[in-house]
């Protein structure tokens, strides 16, 4: 497996002091631009009412309170569809979609990366081209396909398309190309292992960083998904959609809105922190030939 080389020191050569100062200054300014709004969200979530309406507005919270989270819970309990249902919907779709995508993408990626058969180059090229357009292009026409397949207004309308993403296949294939030596697979085949066994017991453990990355990317997309044009019924809608309804309830719900955002963002951020080094390792193989 290609291990990532982590550099100990960068100050080997050609580093001017002025350049260092300049780089750190830019990082500081841009870091503040990226970080302060995130921090402000967290601050808003813990502000009591009088601080939310204080003039002039204060950035930092003075007397942190959990009141906004309580308001949020109250709002949740008054909704027509029980809030636990929205959470279940998002969790159900996220988990099934992620598991499906990891399995199907890995299988297809293994086949394209490690086996020889006619047509595989063309099949991969189609996926590369599909990376170049955003899914908004396909969403409207897919409504027709979904209705023909009777998938509209079911969980499957969100799960099935999520099971085969071009990103999933692309990342898995690129990583397998560099990290799974063909010789290892060959010797396993000579020992009489079936292709499926070689894939599952030899190749898959070797590409752990890639499928961890795929889990994070896929989970984050499904977790953050808001309303979908394929779902009408309230009882199938997502957590993010329900939270959006609360926030749009007006400025008076600013605190509860911020509290809900904090809950929403904690999950993907935590998942990323845990898997960061694996993700970076995967992305290093994601390059595209020109």
């Amino acid at each position, binding site marked *: 497996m290609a291990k990532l080389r982590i550099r100990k020191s960068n100050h080997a050569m050609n580093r001017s002091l002025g350049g260092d100062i300049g780089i750190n200054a830019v990082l500081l300014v841009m870091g503040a631009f*990226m970080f302060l709004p995130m921090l402000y969200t967290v601050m808003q979530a813990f502000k009591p009412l009088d601080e939310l309406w204080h003039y002039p507005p204060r950035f930092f919270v003075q007397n942190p309170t959990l009141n906004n989270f309580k308001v949020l819970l109250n709002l949740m309990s008054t909704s027509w569809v029980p809030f636990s249902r929205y959470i279940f919907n998002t969790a159900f779709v996220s988990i099934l979609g992620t598991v499906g995508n990891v399995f199907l993408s890995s299988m297809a990626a293994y086949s394209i990366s490690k086996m020889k058969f006619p047509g595989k180059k063309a099949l991969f090229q189609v996926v590369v081209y599909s990376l170049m357009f955003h899914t908004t292009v396909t969403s409207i026409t897919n409504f027709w396909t979904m209705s023909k397949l009777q998938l509209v207004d079911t969980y499957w309308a969100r799960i099935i398309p999520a099971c085969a993403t071009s990103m999933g296949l692309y990342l898995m294939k690129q990583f397998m190309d560099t990290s799974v030596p063909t010789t290892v697979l060959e010797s396993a085949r000579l020992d009489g292992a079936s292709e499926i066994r070689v894939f599952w017991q030899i190749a898959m453990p070797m590409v752990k960083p890639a499928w961890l990355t795929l889990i994070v990317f896929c989970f984050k997309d499904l977790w953050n998904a808001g309303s979908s044009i394929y779902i009408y019924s309230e009882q199938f809608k997502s957590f993010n959609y329900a939270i959006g309804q609360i926030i749009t309830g007006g400025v008076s719900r600013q605190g509860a809105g911020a509290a809900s955002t904090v809950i929403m963002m904690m999950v993907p951020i935590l998942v990323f922190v845990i898997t960061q080094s694996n993700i970076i390792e995967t992305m290093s193989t994601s390059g595209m030939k020109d």
Partner: protein
Amino acid sequence: MSQKTETVNRPVSRKDMTKWQWTWKEMKNNKTGYFLLAPFYIIFFTFTVLPVILSVFFSLTDFNMLETPNFLWFDNYIRLFLDDDIFMLAIKNTLVFASITGPGSYLLSLIMAWFINELPPKIRAIMTLIFYAPSISGNVYMVWTYIFSADSHGFLNGTLMDLGVISTPIAFLKDTSYIMPIVIIVALWTSLGTSFLTFIAGFQVVDRSLYEAAAVDGVKNRWQELWYITLPYMRPQMMFGAVMAITSSFGFGGIITALVGYPSPDYCAHTIMHHLDDYGGSRFEMGYASAIAVVLFFMMIGSNMLIRKLLGKVGK
């Protein structure tokens, strides 16, 4: 006839068969390969490739999901480009928006990744998280509606009034002269995503010995190092990052709607994505919506092709 008897005596080789026979044999020998990729590709073709083909077909009809469609040839496109003033506005807005956020997010990702790479490993991991977090945190961009809120309780208005810069609050998210710059800033804020991570990774795998060799060859500073060694070395990552940045620059419709509502005041932030949703998602004019989708599709593919051409020149 003599040829046939000959083949019995030696193993079958490619020369004995036509191209098609050979292909067919190879396909049969590798059934497992097709079996493994079939589930993925069946779904992929149904929901990613088929809709593109269908869009082209639907765009030539007046299909509306209910009645039998009539064939219109290019009427939808003629209506789109000659009769639909809002679509013209949408094209203009999309081009302005995408041509700033696409290259903007790309350069921002690349430069920030490069600077972060100069830091020690531990700080590097923290900075990566700080820059990447806004793009994965769901609807966290809603915080900008608190910052740009139109009354004195909005963070920016309140602060500016307190400092005496302005005397009455500015309706940032309703004033057409502020909306476009603000949505572009917010879009850039959430845009350090996949391409940023790709660059972070790309910088870390550049072969260190190349730098030592380059120093001997007379590369004097880090700018030269970047241009002559690092960037050419990580060209594949740069290509992939470009594709990601451009594709997502066409996908910010949701953020615009969340910040300024739909439709935006005077359609000043109305993009092709909104127009598509309007006709496809709300009015079910599938034929017309498909024509919009086809135009959007070619804009995306076209800009990707253009950028890939340009990137081929890096380091030369």
